[in-house]
């Protein structure tokens, strides 16, 4: 029994994995390539008593050792003993794919050219003269599609036939250069002693080595009496820089075997783009489409989020509380209000995340995502951002957490970091209840206008900071902007749901540890020493820290200051805190066993949540009503001349201060500690300064 290593190589998204899947009918063994988080996938099959390891190498355009994908692929091919290369190419896009094919050919390893997506090629009337192509390249060419099982056996047989063969591929060059190469070859051959009996392949290898500047070969040539000057002259047409262009000349000549009407493939795409990328309608259509999608996400997920919230707080908490009736009060409170509430806080986001990732996956798969970047690149570049950062920032208005994860789709590291730091300035949905409450208490009719003003200040500060930050090295951007607009495709449900599943799983894994601890900590400081919030550490902190906030206007009331640390859990806790402190609501509820009844209520709630979710996606829901007594209590926080200004500064401070722990966690997970610290310090300094200046300046004017 022999072991063979078969490498599947090709450009990104040409169907390498699909082919390995098809040939092995098996799941991949998945791991990461050393040093980078690019998946290493491998499947092992037994064919005719021999075992074949099918390796899925990362998609790449060349073997230049510059990007991670290139390094992994080229090192694997050069260092491991590869018995056969299966070069998978997109038959509908042959011209670009063939560049890699020529590079692979130079490795002198047995090769198969697998033309994938032939079904699509047929549909676009692309005709490829397979035999002529195969003869010219000296490698077997198979036209197939990974979804069409009738060709699997043929491919398998070809792999078996090729594996372990010794091959020699003549260099492919434009006609003129080929003659020069033959002359070079003969010149070298003449000087090689006959008794060595070198084969053509070995001589070609030597020529390749000398071209790459190999010292040993140069020494060898000298001992054989090859004139250095003459050799240099003969080698001149084959320098690496020139070779790149020559490869393209060769590809051009290979394209003679392909008859296609280039426009046919893009016909549908062009027609859609005519509308979606229209000079006048392009942007309005984008804003319309995007707001509809956001509405769909936030309204569609809200009832499900509420359901989970209800389940955790009203159902699970209640019964855990009852089950722990034997335990001391502190332990019960810790479990219910600390741990369960903490886990619940994470779980509540799941439907929102799933909806958001669904939307992103659809945008990405359909091909519209890169078009957004095209439409908005110019506008965002004023602020050293790119078109794609716009998408992340916009998502931030719904929720900062997925917005930070969405920065992954950006093109380069610096843009990603800059965008991630700016996202918390986009006022998320959780901050809205705070504004609504304060605006209703102090601004009455002008409430809406004031809320919009707060949003606008957030955006302005973000853009201003973008310009400041981009002066620093961490965010400096020497970017090589080139973007591909893929043809529109109807997203495949399977791919979309697979993506959503992976992302949601990842989110749960990432969110459960740090966040949980942070939430328990906040519970501890708002419970101890006496077991109620008014005399807790957090309240006494608020009392003493309020001096610091006097210049910002709202520091005259310690309650507002004390509500801030808790807002790190989630911004809406500000409302809950004020509710508890100002209205002195008792949190001691007596629970009763009523399992059957409660479970039924839960089931009914689930039903209506699913229904509401479906209905909400198409209609637009309203905000929840605030309790009137709380609005009244808040309106009495400040009654002096500057009361309104104080309230406004508080709203502003809530918007700009440190984002919630989930967002911080997302920033930390994606970009590490340095960026986390940058974000935290920004969100400490900026809100203080902003509120300070606004209060000081306006208190003079008003």
């Amino acid at each position, binding site marked *: 029994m022999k072991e063979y290593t078969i490498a599947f190589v090709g450009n990104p998204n040409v169907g390498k994995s699909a082919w390995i899947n098809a040939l092995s009918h098996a799941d991949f063994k998945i791991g990461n390539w050393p040093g980078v988080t690019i998946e290493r996938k491998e499947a092992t099959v037994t064919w005719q008593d021999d075992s074949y390891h099918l390796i899925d190498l990362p998609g790449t*355009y*060349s073997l*230049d050792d*510059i990007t991670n994908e290139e390094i992994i692929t080229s090192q694997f091919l050069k260092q491991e003993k590869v018995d056969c290369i299966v070069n998978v190419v997109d038959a*509908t*896009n042959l*011209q*670009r794919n063939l*560049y890699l094919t020529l590079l692979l050919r130079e490795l002198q390893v047995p090769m198969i050219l697998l033309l994938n997506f032939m079904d699509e090629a047929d549909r676009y009337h692309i005709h490829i003269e397979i035999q002529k192509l195969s003869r010219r390249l000296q490698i077997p060419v198979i036209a197939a599609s990974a979804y069409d099982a009738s060709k699997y056996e043929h491919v398998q047989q070809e792999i078996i036939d090729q594996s372990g063969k010794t091959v020699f591929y003549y260099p492919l060059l434009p006609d003129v250069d080929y003659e020069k190469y033959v002359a070079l070859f003969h010149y070298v051959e003449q000087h090689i002693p006959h008794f060595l009996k070198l084969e053509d392949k070995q001589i070609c290898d030597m020529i390749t080595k000398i071209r790459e500047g190999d010292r040993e070969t140069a020494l060898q040539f000298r001992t054989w009496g090859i004139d250095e000057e003459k050799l240099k002259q003969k080698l001149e047409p084959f320098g690496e820089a020139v070779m*790149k*262009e020559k490869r*393209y*000349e060769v590809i051009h000549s290979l394209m003679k075997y392909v008859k296609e009407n*280039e426009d046919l*493939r*893009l016909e549908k*795409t062009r027609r859609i*783009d005519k509308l979606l*990328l*229209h*000079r*006048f309608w*392009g*942007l309005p259509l984008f804003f319309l489409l995007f707001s509809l999608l956001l509405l769909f996400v936030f309204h569609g997920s809200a009832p499900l989020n509420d359901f989970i919230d209800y389940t955790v707080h009203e159902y699970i908490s209640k019964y855990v509380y009852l089950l722990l009736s034997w335990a001391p009060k502190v332990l019960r409170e810790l479990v219910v209000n600390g741990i369960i509430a903490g886990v619940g806080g994470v779980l509540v986001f799941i439907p929102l995340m799933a909806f958001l990732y669904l939307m992103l996956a659809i945008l990405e798969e359909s091909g519209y995502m*890169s078009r957004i*970047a*095209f*439409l*908005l*690149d*110019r*506008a965002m570049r004023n602020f050293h951002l790119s078109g794609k950062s716009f998408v992340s920032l916009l998502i931030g208005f719904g929720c900062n957490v997925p917005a930070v994860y969405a920065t992954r789709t950006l093109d380069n590291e610096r843009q990603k970091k800059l965008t991630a730091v700016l996202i918390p300035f986009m006022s998320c949905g959780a901050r809205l209840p705070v504004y609504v409450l304060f605006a209703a208490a102090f601004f009455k009719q002008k409430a809406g206008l004031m809320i919009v003003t707060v949003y606008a200040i957030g955006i302005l500060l973000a853009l201003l900071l973008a310009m400041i930050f981009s002066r620093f090295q961490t965010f400096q951007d020497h970017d*090589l*902007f*080139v*973007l*591909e*607009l*893929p*043809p529109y495709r109807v997203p495949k449900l399977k791919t979309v749901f697979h993506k959503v599943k992976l992302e949601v799983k990842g989110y749960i894994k990432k969110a459960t540890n740090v966040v949980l601890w942070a939430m328990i900590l906040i519970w501890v400081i708002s419970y101890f020493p006496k077991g109620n919030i008014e005399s807790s550490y957090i309240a006494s902190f608020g009392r003493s820290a309020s001096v610091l906030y006097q210049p910002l206007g709202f520091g005259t009331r310690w309650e507002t200051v004390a509500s801030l640390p808790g807002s790190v859990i989630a911004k809406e806790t500000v409302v809950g805190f004020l509710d508890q402190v100002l209205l002195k609501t008792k949190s001691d509820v007596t629970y009763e066993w009523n399992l059957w009844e409660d479970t039924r209520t839960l089931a009914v709630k689930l039903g209506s949540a699913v229904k509401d979710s479906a209905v909400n996606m198409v209609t637009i829901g309203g905000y929840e009503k605030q309790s009137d007594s709380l609005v009244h209590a808040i309106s009495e926080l400040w009654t002096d001349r500057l009361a309104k200004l104080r309230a406004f500064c508080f709203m502003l401070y809530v918007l700009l201060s440190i984002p919630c722990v989930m967002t911080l966690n997302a920033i930390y997970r994606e970009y590490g500690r340095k960026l986390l610290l940058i974000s935290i310090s920004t969100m400490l300094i900026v809100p203080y300064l902003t509120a300070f200046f606004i209060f000081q300046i306006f208190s003079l004017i008003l």
Partner: protein
Amino acid sequence: MLILVITMKLTELKPREKARITHLDLSEEYQRRLLHLGVYKGSVIRMERLAPLGDPLEYFVCGNLLILRRSDAQNIEITREG
């Protein structure tokens, strides 16, 4: 016979006009990336459209639709083709 070759900048191309690239005055790294997408000395390029805000620009090269910024496209020289 006199052959008149007029070189112009890629940005001067109007929608639906075709041209051949004659020179790229761009960084090594950027040229390499463009090469893999089919943009190199000698390739044929067709202008597709401008973005609504006048920048970036969309081109058709090597069977694909590519987006380049005006500032980069300015450094690519072309000769017009029929």
